[in-house]
Structures are given as structure tokens and as C-alpha cells.
């Protein structure tokens, strides 16, 4: 008996202290997170939707449990912040709970505000802080640095070091998460080819054009009478790791009759920062992107859409207005920006693409691993299915629990590797049951994770993971 120990009579026990007056409320949890926790009626409808509740099996690791812990910490009843941090750190942030919630609780806002409060209290060691700062402030938002790293990756793969390392099981000596991803990393284009791909193929030509267009607002490609005029948001990790997919994306848009322009000066969307509680950094990056977009429209005229192909980044872009709750001017600018952001599937679904099929008679079975933030935040659900259905020779076979997260979740699979792999293994059992040859994804994180999943399940000889754009490009002969 813990709470009612000193009150031996009556059922009063511990009344919900939510009715206590505001002074008890921790200032860190004022607007908007604390109020948002009050909207949760603890019905539990989120439990079956939560991947960590499924794999970890306790309420502590469920949305309802986490919201309750945030509320109790805000009210000063749970005083050990490390316990709150433990529960929130292990949340994927997939936000499937928001779709499941019948009361419209914005879990994402609670999570980010609480993580931000935790960051403010956490005493990280100087080294850890320096490394974190380097990654968050220098590497991710900086395309040059990312491109250099990406080049290093190519050297690693092409020099045979990778094969040797794999053969000698050297990857086993790496920390497990890194070893796992070294094995699953995408094939890199050589830096030299990246520079001169104009001469190689249409996709690479577009990629090269895109790279060289980075500093100008000149159309990357245009059609005679464009169906839409779109600005393509390349993203940072997507651009460095999956440049080919970006190139194909722009090709597809052009192919469907759009005029495509780049956004000079665009940077990382800031999603990783926001999800990690680095609110200030996220705001800074959002401002830079909004400004870049405004400059583009000033100098080169308005665009119909800002198109991206990464479910997670797209979700961050449409949520920019939430970053500026205290600044009406910026909020208005963010709203204008966000109103134009679209996932590429939404735009492609409105175009007429020359989907000629994949050149063989045999039907290929594919399954579709949804991007959580595309589904639950952008609420884009139908368009990818519509596009898949339009490709001749493709049969979509949905997996069980098709809306569940793959466990990639930004950098979750690196920092919480074991938990992430437990979630991935559940997913791969569902994938395997479909007997699909291809797993379609719509976000770079998911794509990497599913590639890793295929290896972990020992399916690499009969299954591959692709971005939806790659499959469409293939069908269009790009």
C-alpha cells in the first residue's frame, strides 16, 4: 500500500491530482504539453497500435502510459526524471497512437515538449554533448559534410574493404548497430560518377543536374506546358545517401508533365532535432527553409507545390507552424509554406505517367511498409496504393498489422538497437508471410531498415526493398 497508507478510511485514496491548482505544475510542462495530457481519457485504444507496447509488453511503454508519466512528472508526483526519460527515450515517435486515438490527443506534441524539458535537465557529459552537437548542428544540416561522408562510404564499399570485412566477419567487431547498418547501406555511386553523371543515364543526369542546380533557381527540367510547377525539397540524408532516388523523383515529375525547380539554400528539415527535444535547432532550420522557399518564389515566381519524397521529412515540413506558437508572423509564414508541401505520391497520383510495366509477363508480388509519419502525421494513405495499383504486373499483398512501424524511427535503430530489432523482427515475420519479392517504402529510414530486415531474415536472395519512386521509375522505363 503506497499512496493511501496514511489515509486508512474511505476510497478517496489518492484523488487525481489533476484537480490541484496550477502552482504544482512544473513550468517546463506548461503549454502545450500538459494541457494536451489532460485530453487523454486513458481508454487504451492506443495500446494495440503501439509497436513498443507489443514488443516490450508493459503499460510503461505504451502511449497511454507515457502520457500518464508526463502528467505525473508535470504535477511533481513522479520526481525521478530519469524514469520519465527511460519511458520516453524508448518511444519510436511513430504516432500511430494519434490515428488510433478517439479523443484526438496530439501525442507528438506531448512527446516533443517533454523531451525538450528532459534535454534541459539532463547533464550530458562534455564529450557526449560535443558529439551530439557535432552531429545535430554540423553534420546533418550540412550537405557538403554529408556528401563527404557519403564518398567515404563509397570508398569503403568499392575498395573491397567491405567485402573483406564481411568475409572476415570484421563487422562483428563493430558496435552491433553500426555493423548492422554497414551491411545494409545502399550502393553508393562513386564521387566521380556523381560529378559527371550527366553523361551516363537519365536518372543520373537528373541527379547531376540537380546537384549543379543547387545554387540556382533554374528549372531542373521542364515540360512545354507544365501540369504543375513544383519545387523539389531534396532533404539532407535522402540527398546524400539516396541521391539516385531524388534524381528519379525529379525525372518522374518531369515525365508526368511538371516543371521542377530546386530550392537554393534549403537545408535539413529539422525532424531529427525536433524529435530529440532540440527545439531551438529545429526552429532555426525551419526558418532557413521557409526563407529559402520565399526567396525562390520572389526570384522565380510561385510554385504549386513543394514536393518531397521522405515521409518523415514531409511530416516535419507540414508541422512547421507548430514550431511557432509564440510568433504569429513566423507562424503565418510557416503556414503558407506548409500548405504547399506534398508528398511526391500525392502529386504523382494526379499525373499521367507512362507506366508501361516492368517488361515481363510474370506478376511480381510486392508488400508495402508504410512510413509512419506519412500515414499518421501527413495522413497520406490512398495515393501510394493508387500508384501501386496503376503499375502493370504488380500485385500488392498487404502484411498483417500493415500500419505498424518498422522500428527505424529516425536514429532510434542506432541508439536503441536491441529494441528496434525486436520490432523489426516482428515486422519481418509479417513480410515473410506475404511471400513478396519487393518491399515498397516511402521514406529513407524505412528503406534502410527494411534492407536490414531482409538480411536479418536471410531473405536477401529473393527479396529486395525499394522506394516507391524506384518502382514507378522502373515501370516508366527511367
Amino acid at each position: 500500500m503506497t499512496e493511501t497508507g496514511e489515509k486508512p478510511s474511505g476510497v478517496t485514496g489518492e484523488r487525481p491530482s489533476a484537480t490541484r491548482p496550477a502552482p504544482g505544475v512544473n513550468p517546463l510542462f506548461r503549454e502545450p504539453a500538459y494541457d494536451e495530457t489532460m485530453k487523454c481519457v486513458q481508454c487504451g485504444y492506443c495500446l494495440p497500435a503501439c509497436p513498443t507496447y507489443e514488443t516490450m509488453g508493459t503499460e510503461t511503454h505504451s502511449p497511454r502510459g507515457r502520457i500518464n508519466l508526463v502528467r505525473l512528472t508535470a504535477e511533481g508526483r513522479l520526481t525521478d526524471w530519469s524514469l520519465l526519460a527511460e519511458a520516453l527515450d524508448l518511444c519510436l515517435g511513430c504516432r500511430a497512437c494519434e490515428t488510433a486515438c478517439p479523443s484526438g490527443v496530439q501525442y507528438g506534441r506531448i512527446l516533443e515538449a517533454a523531451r525538450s524539458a528532459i534535454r534541459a535537465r539532463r547533464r550530458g557529459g562534455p564529450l557526449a554533448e560535443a558529439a551530439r552537437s557535432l552531429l545535430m548542428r554540423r553534420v546533418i544540416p550540412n550537405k557538403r559534410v554529408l556528401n563527404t561522408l557519403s564518398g567515404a562510404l563509397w570508398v569503403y564499399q568499392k575498395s573491397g574493404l567491405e567485402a573483406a570485412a564481411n568475409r572476415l566477419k570484421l563487422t562483428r567487431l563493430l558496435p552491433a548497430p553500426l555493423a548492422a547498418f554497414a551491411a545494409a547501406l545502399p550502393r553508393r555511386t562513386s564521387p566521380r560518377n556523381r560529378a559527371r553523371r550527366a553523361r551516363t543515364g537519365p536518372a543520373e543526369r537528373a541527379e547531376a543536374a540537380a546537384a549543379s542546380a543547387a545554387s540556382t533557381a533554374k528549372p531542373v527540367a521542364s515540360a512545354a506546358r507544365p501540369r504543375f510547377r513544383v519545387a523539389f525539397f531534396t532533404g539532407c540524408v535522402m540527398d546524400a545517401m539516396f541521391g539516385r532516388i531524388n534524381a528519379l523523383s525529379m525525372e518522374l515529375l518531369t515525365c508526368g508533365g511538371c516543371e521542377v525547380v530546386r530550392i537554393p539554400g534549403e537545408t535539413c528539415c529539422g525532424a531529427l532535432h525536433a524529435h530529440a527535444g532540440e527545439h531551438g535547432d529545429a526552429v532555426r532550420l525551419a526558418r532557413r527553409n521557409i526563407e529559402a522557399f520565399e526567396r525562390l518564389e520572389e526570384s522565380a515566381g510561385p510554385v504549386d507545390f513543394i514536393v518531397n519524397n521522405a515521409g518523415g521529412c514531409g511530416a516535419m515540413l507540414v508541422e512547421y507552424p507548430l514550431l511557432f506558437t509564440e510568433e504569429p508572423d513566423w507562424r503565418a509564414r510557416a503556414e503558407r509554406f506548409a500548405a504547399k508541401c506534398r508528398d511526391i505520391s500525392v502529386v504523382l497520383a494526379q499525373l499521367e505517367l507512362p507506366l508501361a510495366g516492368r517488361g515481363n509477363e510474370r506478376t511480381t508480388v510486392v508488400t508495402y511498409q508504410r512510413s509512419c509519419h506519412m500515414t499518421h502525421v501527413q495522413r497520406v494513405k490512398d495515393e501510394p496504393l493508387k500508384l501501386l495499383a496503376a503499375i502493370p504486373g504488380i500485385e500488392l499483398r498487404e502484411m498483417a498489422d500493415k500500419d505498424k512501424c518498422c522500428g527505424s524511427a529516425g536514429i532510434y535503430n542506432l541508439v536503441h538497437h536491441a529494441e528496434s530489432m525486436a520490432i523489426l523482427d516482428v515486422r519481418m515475420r509479417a513480410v515473410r508471410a506475404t511471400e513478396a519479392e519487393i518491399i515498397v517504402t516511402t521514406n529513407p529510414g524505412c528503406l534502410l531498415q527494411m534492407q536490414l530486415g531482409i538480411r536479418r531474415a536471410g531473405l536477401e536472395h529473393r527479396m529486395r526493398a525499394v522506394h516507391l519512386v524506384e518502382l514507378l521509375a522502373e515501370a516508366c522505363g527511367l
Partner: protein
Amino acid sequence: MINEFERSPKSGHARYGAETARKQTRATRIKEGDTAMAAFTETHLQELRAIFGDKRVLYREHDLYSYAFDASFGTYRPDAVVQPLTTDEVRKLVLMANRERIPLTPRGHASSLSGGPLPVMGGIVVDLSKMNDKLIIDEEDLVAVVSPGVLTAQIHQAAERKGLMYPPDPSSSAVSTIGGNLAENSGGPRGLKYGVTRDYVLGLEVVTPTGEVIRTGGRTVKNVTGYDLTRLIVGSEGTLGIITEATLRLIPKPPASETMMAIFDDLVVCGKAISRILSSGILPAKIELMDQASILAVEHYEPCGLPRDAKAIILIELDGHPQAIKAEMETARDVCRTTGAREIRVAQSEAEKNDLWRARKLVSPAVARIKPTKISEDICVPKSKIPEAFARLERIRDKYGLHMVIFGHAGDGNLHPNIMADKRDAEEMKRVEQAVAEIFQTAVELGGTLSGEHGIGTMKAPFLPLELGDAGIAMMRRIKEAWDPKGIMNPGKIFPRPGQRLVLTDD
């Protein structure tokens, strides 16, 4: 894990030894009826670990707080949480708790609206949601044999795959466990035609509060051997034992369904229409109601083309043979028209059916926008009293000046007046308490009951004498004491304590 946080003086990992030592010196003893509960100690924790292993015994502060609530009111931190996987583990646990006088609170997914899973006396929360390995559909015997942690929706799906149906359909079936449904005797919209959970339970395996494993009932619909302990256990809210397996009755799935919406300019007239449909020789599977407050909330939240000036809407679903329900639909339509419905819409396709039901499904999220705290009541009145119940609920709403929406399963007399308030507003919550008391009074005066399907738990215990009388409660107490002489099973539920009243606020 290294603690990276500055420790506040009161903080700490709830290190068990220190905390329990303090508690023991305080000699905490809680009176529950005539029985005394003992404090939970380190030794008890060790014994739990011996039964369940380290992983399935939770005792750290954040874990305890995560099992301190349900969908009703109050936060009650238990001393430990265990997650059994087998009947034998449950048996060992109960033997220990009974020997040591430690309260046990069984729990599924804690979606209860009446406080059933709240560990109000502390002790051990028994999380049965992990005991979910058995779900057998027997097509020849028309039964399902299930473990308590299986989700109700999983039973629905498994039965439907074989052309069968398990009718009880609480709105929470996607998350609720069958164990919780059995303990609370859950209902749902289909209760109108098909009855509630207890009507589909043929047999149970139960661990009694003294640690015996018994089997009640059997596998046949007819069974009059001895007292009907199955019916006693179903709806006993975890106070008479822990259900570890159930044998459920299944029926053939109806081949077709039809849906109709009727719109009224008067709530009481709508109530009359419901009564008349039910006495017109047809039995719909569901009759769901939305009052004007619900309609406005939905239209404000996500416009569905509902008339904002209508005072009430009912949705009627008929199921059965396609030709039979076509004829029945005509009857229902005639009754509504002659009683005074201003408009009737009959769905002509699956898509139209879904459209009609969409509005009903949006009520919950829509009313949640009005105010954050929802007090969901659950009275049930005889069918002939439905119109009067509506009239009196409207008076109560106006008298206390509250946001009240009435929606739910009107057809079986089970009305869900939901009061929307803000639990941070003490003055408003006082008015809510008074209104709730008057709602209960109304239900009993009309020959109805305090609770149709949510259970008594902690919330409605103070009102029990109103309906059962002192002698009625005394008889129930004697049953409770015979089963559970030490009072360890879910103490603090159903039975009111002297002077107990409904409290939704702190003071």
C-alpha cells in the same frame, strides 16, 4: 543505468528495501470490511520473483504508476505488478496473497469506466493481458475456448472467419480483453438483440481467492448441474476470483444487414419511436442514438451533413436473412414515420451504410473537443420508460447547467448520458457530482439500474443501497465472505463503505 539527472530530495529509483522498511515501521494496516490487509514487503517481492521470474514482476516507480489507473477516475499506485502466463502461476500467486493478506487486483487492458482495475488498496496488480495464447474456435460444438488476455476483437475475427459470430461487442472491443469483459459482464450495441457477455458464457476456469482451481459450467448450452457459478462469476468485477479460461457460445453469423437513419425534432418523440419499434414485432440488432448536442459536436468537428436543428437521430441496424430484413426495414420505416420522424434515410449500399455509421463513430472524438473530462454514465431503464428517461435527463442537464450529451445504445434502454466538464474546475465538478447522483436516482425510480454495462467498481458503489437495499447488499456480502474470507480479491469495489460518497474532486 547512470542517472544523468540532478536528484531532487524526494527522488530516487523507489529502491525497494528502504521504502518498504519505512512502511513496515509505520505498521500500515488498512481496514477493509472486517479484514486487515498487510503491508507489502521485500520478502513478498522475492516470492513473486520466484513465481514469475525477474522480467514479469514490475516494482519500479514508473512501472507502478503505469498500472495505477483505468479509463475512470483516480490514480492508485500498487506495490507490485505481475504478468502471469499460466493458471498455475495465478494459483501460486493467489495462495501467497491469501496467506499474506495482500490485496490482488486483476486487470486486462484497463479500459474500464467504473474503476474495476484500480488497485485502491494497493497490493499487487495482476496484469492478465499477457495470458493470451489460447483462442480455439470449435465449429462443431459452436464454442470458443479462450485465455483471459485474448482481445475481444480477436474472438470476433476468428469466429467470423468460420462463418460464426460472438455477439457481445463493447465499443472497446479492439482493445478490451475477454477476461475484463467477463469480469464486468460487458454489453455493447448488439445487446439489444443478442444480449450481453453473460448470455454467451458456457463455462469458466477460475482460481478462487483461496487458491483452488475450479471449473464452472461446461461446453453445452443446457446445463443445470448445481448452482450456476458461471453467472455468479461473470460480472463479479474480480471480487470472487481470477478467470483463467472461458468457454464461449457462438452463433451463426447473420448473412446480411440493413441500416437506416431517422431524424427527429423532439428527443422524447424519438424515445417513443424507439419504444414502438421494439413492440412492432421486429428486433433490430442495434438502435443507436445521438441527441442534438452530439449532432452539433459532430458537425462542428467534421461536417457529415447532419441537420443541425434536429433534436435527435437514431440509427437502426437490422440483421438476418436478406429478404426478412427488407420487410422488417419497411416496418421500422413506417413506425418512425407515423411517430413523427421528419426524415428517414435508408442506406442503399455498403458505402452509404458506412457513411451513416460514420457520424455515430465521430461522436466520441467530437465531444472530447467540448471539454477535456468526460463522465460517462451508464444507466439502463425498461424499454417503456425510454421517453421519460430522456425528458428527465434533459431537466437534470438544465438544472445543473452542464454540457451533457446523450448518445449510445438507446434501443435496450441503456442510455449513456455523458457529462463533459473540466476536472480542474472544482465548482463545476461539484455540480457534476450532484447531477450524477440525480441521474442514478432517476434510473432507479424508473425501475432501471445504476449500470447497464460498465460495472459498479468504485464510482457507483456509494449508490448501491439505492437499488439493492441493505438486505440485498448484506446477502451479497455473505457470498463475498464465503468465497474470499480474507477479502484479498479486488478490495474496495462494488460494496460501499460507511459514509462513502461520489467524489470527483480533491477536497
